């Protein structure tokens, strides 16, 4: 088992989440807000991977499936182990974070060209 308990990793995750939220709340600069979002996504990933390593997973792949032909050992063989779920989830989060960061930065660059500034508070053409 890893050198530290599950709770250690969860507390680090909670800390990263809180700092991410703080960054998002207190920053005016859009790029800084984006950094806060990345902290939040990393915190979720730490939790996912930690749970994947520590937590017992029921053998949910296959057996309850009604239409799926492969059961038990065969299902495990083809569809992978159930405990890997958290790792796979984390991999997807990384993919989505990359897409989100690319789009967000394209938008920020676009607004910079339009306004010459990326302060969120300056974005005030609309009020009310």
């Amino acid at each position, binding site marked *: 088992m890893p050198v530290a308990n599950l709770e250690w990793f969860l507390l680090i995750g909670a800390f990263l989440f809180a700092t991410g939220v703080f960054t998002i709340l207190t920053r005016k600069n859009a790029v800084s807000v984006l950094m806060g979002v990345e902290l*939040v996504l990393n915190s979720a990933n730490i939790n996912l991977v930690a749970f994947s390593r520590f937590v017992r997973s029921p053998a*949910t792949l296959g057996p309850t499936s009604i239409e799926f032909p*492969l059961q038990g050992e065969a299902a495990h063989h083809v569809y992978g182990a159930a405990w890997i779920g958290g790792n796979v*989830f984390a991999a997807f989060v990384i993919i989505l974070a990359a897409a989100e960061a690319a789009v967000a930065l394209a*938008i920020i660059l676009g607004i910079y060209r*339009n*306004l010459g500034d990326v302060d*969120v508070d300056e*974005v005030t053409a*609309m009020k009310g």
Partner: protein
Amino acid sequence: MQLGVVENLSFLTPEILLTVTLGAVIALDIGGPKDRKGLVARLAATGLGATLLMVILTYFELETKQRARVFLFADSFVVDPFSMFFKLVAGVCSFMIALFAAKVRRIESQGEGEFYTLLLVTTLGIFLMAGVTDLVGMVVAIETLSIPSYILAGFYKRDRGSSEASLKYVLYGATASGSMLFGLAFLYGLSGTTSFQGISAAIASGRADVLSISLMLGLVLIGLGFKISAAPFHMWTPDVYEGSPTAVTAYLSTASKAGGFAILIRLFYSILARPEVASRPEGQWIPIGDPGWTTLVAVIAVVTMTIGNLAAYKQTNVKRLLAYSSIAHAGYILLGFVVMHGSGLMAMLFYIATYVFMNLGAFLCVIAVSEAGGGEEISDFRGLGWRAPFLGFCMAAFLFSLTGLPPLAGFVGKVYLFAALVEHGWVWLSVVAALNSAVSLYYYVRVVKTMYLEGIPRRAGDVVPLRIGSHFGIMLFVCLVPTILFGIYWQPLARLATWSVGASAPVEARPVAAHK
């Protein structure tokens, strides 16, 4: 070896067709002829129409084969009447938006190919949101909807309002989905599995106390509440709706919202509730674990509709007014959620289906007016009832339907919602909702008043007609028909909604025979 997947792939025909259309649109945009004015739009609309046809065929197939639901990919995706209902609604919205956008000059000149590509990707996202029963699929589906939506909101690159809308949308959206992910990570940790069914079992086991469960679900609710713009996660809505291209606003307020409701109902009714009698999922539902969440949702619904209606009062921009109105409508739809009975869910589905048409229609009127040279302020609508009689009539019908006046579809939808509430002991909630509807009459009527009672021509010859073109006229008519028809003859839609709810049972319930 994976024969099962191939066999059941026929149930994914709508999604596959959508992806093929997407590929064809990109290919045409890159390699097509130079003077292909409107060709991309026509291709995308044709593909969406074919997809819609496949959705309807799959719907029938589910009924005729007596199979209420088909599970795919080791139970991580389900094709059932509930998901097909939302695919139908979202498909209709996308199809209509594709048709409207074809005549919006600015979209055409800025990059048709990109617009329709992104529209098709978001549609695929909603289709997946309707059917996922797994956390990973859920997150990917929601982001497949969200990320292209951020770009669509800022599609008018040189327009300050549009790029601001997209910046706000992406920053709020990324924060909301990050919080949701953190909540989902806890749910995964609780159960050790990513499937809704396993999470439901873990919550039922009582391994986490009520406070912890509430916190986890609260985090998830941030992400989903953002998608349906429920209070207090609605702040982005007015700015994004006002700044975005109107075709995109129409899309965000209908299809995107329907997708949000689909995943909200699926998630909460899969992990936090089970039907009282497993073979009759359309009846009473029993909460699992913490029963307090219905009260929480009731409070959210009340706050949402009240904020939406009160803020709509002082708006002078029609798009912004409709944005607040759509917040209020998210509140009404949430009412069906708290009933914990099939009748509430059915009322939600019915309301969403009717709401989509009246809201699309109202935004279509805004597009038609601005394409004909008018503006988006309420004052720009002065005398519109005289200058463009058909458009004025349609807009009035859509607004009255949004208010919930008979004999229009919005009225029947509200009756179903309120009846479900009263029937199951939520009388105070239905009173608050009825009061809210009464309040909303004021600002909807204000627009109608501006159209008909201001700028009345003195003499017949004074009328300056506003020509909206036959394309928009036909589209308006297409939205008008269901708005009026479902107000008079609503039974078919009600039957469809009831049947669709019948199969929204959590995954572990035994598959039931198709309901007649």
